[in-house]
């Protein structure tokens, strides 16, 4: 019963109950998300990155903001319009106070070729905003990006259709798992899956390039090393670099077991792999507890970028969709 908000004409401020833009007759839709420790100031316009440009598709509105006139958008006619449109779907609903509502224009979605709103399910993960299916989020958001006036997101797999591991991933793991160790390991599964896909992709590229069999053998040998494969994955993603925030945490774990050069020049892929090995094989040797939350949040965001990468490569995308994302 705790922390539930009944959306009704009684809970909604009077000033939000009138259509502030009656001449705008577009079709709107809503998708529900959840963020632990919701903040009524988290109101943002949502843009989707589309090849070179960014296109606005609607607003992200915490449910807390819909029943408050204390935030800075209380008199903004565009905000009010989106609340008004959202109420067409939500009037009478009792929702948890952690709910965030994406109010989008159907027309604007069409313009950027988003065929189902589920394609934006995990688009706000870096901000700690997860799609709402069964449970309100209760995970830590200490290391998540702040929400400003504008969120720029990308589309990805339609998690509304997910099955198997990814159904568990989006419905249970994302909002509920609070154990940092477990959370890290679950997200690492996305790496395992991606590395396997990249392995086959790279071998296939060699085959298509009619590479010499000896070269292919040698490469397969290289790719069989998980440490090298994760670097290949990051190279493919174009995201490998030394990350000083991750290095600082690595240093607090490994201390002088690694020389200074390791912390200043090692790429994040290799560092994450080392940390993963330490968690699996030597957790008891180190004091990692205080960093688990950070590491889980870090790898969660990285897993998000890994999924975005897979989604961006047509062959990999099809493969994953056939396995995990389909109409049942």
């Amino acid at each position: 019963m705790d922390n539930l908000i009944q959306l009704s004409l009684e809970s909604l401020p009077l000033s939000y109950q009138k259509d502030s833009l009656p001449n705008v007759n577009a079709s709107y839709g809503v998708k529900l998300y959840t963020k632990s420790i919701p903040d009524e100031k988290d109101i943002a316009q949502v843009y989707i990155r589309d090849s070179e440009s960014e296109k606005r598709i609607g607003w992200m509105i915490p449910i807390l903001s819909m029943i408050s006139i204390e935030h800075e958008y209380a008199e903004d006619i565009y905000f009010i319009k989106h609340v008004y449109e959202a109420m067409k779907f939500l009037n009478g609903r009792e929702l948890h106070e952690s709910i965030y509502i994406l109010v989008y224009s159907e027309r604007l979605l069409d313009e950027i070729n988003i065929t189902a709103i589920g394609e934006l399910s995990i688009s706000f993960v870096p901000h700690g905003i997860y799609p709402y299916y069964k449970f309100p989020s209760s995970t830590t958001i200490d290391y998540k990006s702040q929400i400003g006036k504008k969120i720029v997101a990308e589309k990805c797999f339609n998690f509304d259709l997910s099955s198997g591991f990814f159904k568990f991933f989006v419905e249970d793991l994302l909002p509920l798992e609070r154990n940092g160790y477990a959370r890290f390991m679950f997200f690492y599964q996305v790496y395992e899956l991606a590395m396997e896909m990249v392995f086959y992709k790279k071998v296939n590229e060699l085959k298509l390039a009619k590479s010499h069999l000896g070269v292919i053998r040698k490469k397969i040998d290289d790719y069989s090393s998980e440490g090298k494969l994760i670097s290949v994955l990051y190279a493919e993603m174009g995201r490998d670099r030394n990350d000083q925030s991750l290095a600082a945490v690595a240093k607090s774990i490994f201390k002088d077991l690694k020389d200074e050069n390791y912390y200043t020049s090692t790429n994040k892929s290799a560092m994450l792999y080392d940390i993963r090995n330490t968690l699996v094989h030597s957790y008891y040797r180190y004091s990692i507890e205080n960093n688990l939350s950070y590491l889980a949040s870090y790898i969660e965001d990285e897993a998000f970028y890994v999924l975005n990468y897979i989604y961006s490569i047509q062959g990999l995308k099809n493969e994953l969709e056939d396995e995990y994302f389909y109409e049942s």
Partner: protein
Amino acid sequence: MTKITNVSLDKKVNSRNIQFVMDIGSYAQLAGNIIDNNPYQRNRVSKSGSIYNLLKEDIIQECIIPPIVLASTSKLSQNSSPERLLEEVLADYGNLKILDGLQRTLSIIDVYNNNREHFDNLDEKYLVRIEAYLSISDAGILYRMLTLNTGQTPMTLRHQLEILFSKYADGPFDGISILREVDEASVRSIDAYRFSDLIDGYTSFLEKNELPIDRFDILQTVRTIKFISGEGSAKIDFSDFVHSYRALTLAFDARFPDWVYPGEVDEDLRTAANPFGREIYKIFNKSQPLTGFGAAVAELISSKTVAGLDDVNELAKRLEFEENDLLRLIKFLDDIRGESKKIGNGQRIFFKLFFKYLLDRDGSSFLSVSESLERAKNRAMAEV
């Protein structure tokens, strides 16, 4: 037809209680008048739909419904017979409220209106059991409302207060104009309040809690009952509450006449967002300070630091101000806003602390607006 079955005196709330039966058609008509006269009694107890559907079926089968309890605040003629008194009470439905059995009543009206012919042609009239408290005070009504409703269909204290004090909505009283169902922007002077904001404040006073509790909380209700019951002769009525709060706001208004938020403000007092209010009434005639005041003064009364609401009227005359008090108040509210996930709640906490420090005789910042603001801000920033 109406027939009296018992007359007793409720010595707790000092009110005569008449128990009677009435045929369903007459009660449906009477109840319709009561509800039409008080929109706050109309809806809102809409949960458990299937239970009430069952009740409707039972009514058609002429089940015995537990007595419905009414309360009348009519001034009645002395020494009249019970029959005469009851007649007067039922005729003056503007002063009648349904204390207990609102949902049953709505069901009765619904069933009767859909089956008039059936009920009107019964050989023996189907009777509804009713009892009415006569000439009962507002505090008595509230006490009985809470004790009767405890443990039943959730009706929030706030909803019950709306029903009880709806007579104040729309009307000016003692120089105050109370506006019903209007936007905050419609409050345009230190003398005007929204009814819902005053109810928020009085709810916080009775619950000793500045934060809105929209759900039914039986423990809180019990505490409230104890509070009302324990105050005895102390003045804790709704109108006392409004007058004491108003005394404080008028003290600010008198010290800073015609104050408006300046166009230029020193950097250290500048706000990140829009100022909480640009005029005194826009700062104080709002839900947040009213609820903060309600919770603060209730705590002070409980701890015997303040004798009662009328004590506040006297203290208001002795407040000590400094030049920048209003700008600092607004700056502190802006700081709280930046830290709060729920801005309104953060501001309520701040106002509660401010009024508590300001009116606490045993505290170091008693009557000092400036020092109370500083202490409230420091504490509130740690709490939100």
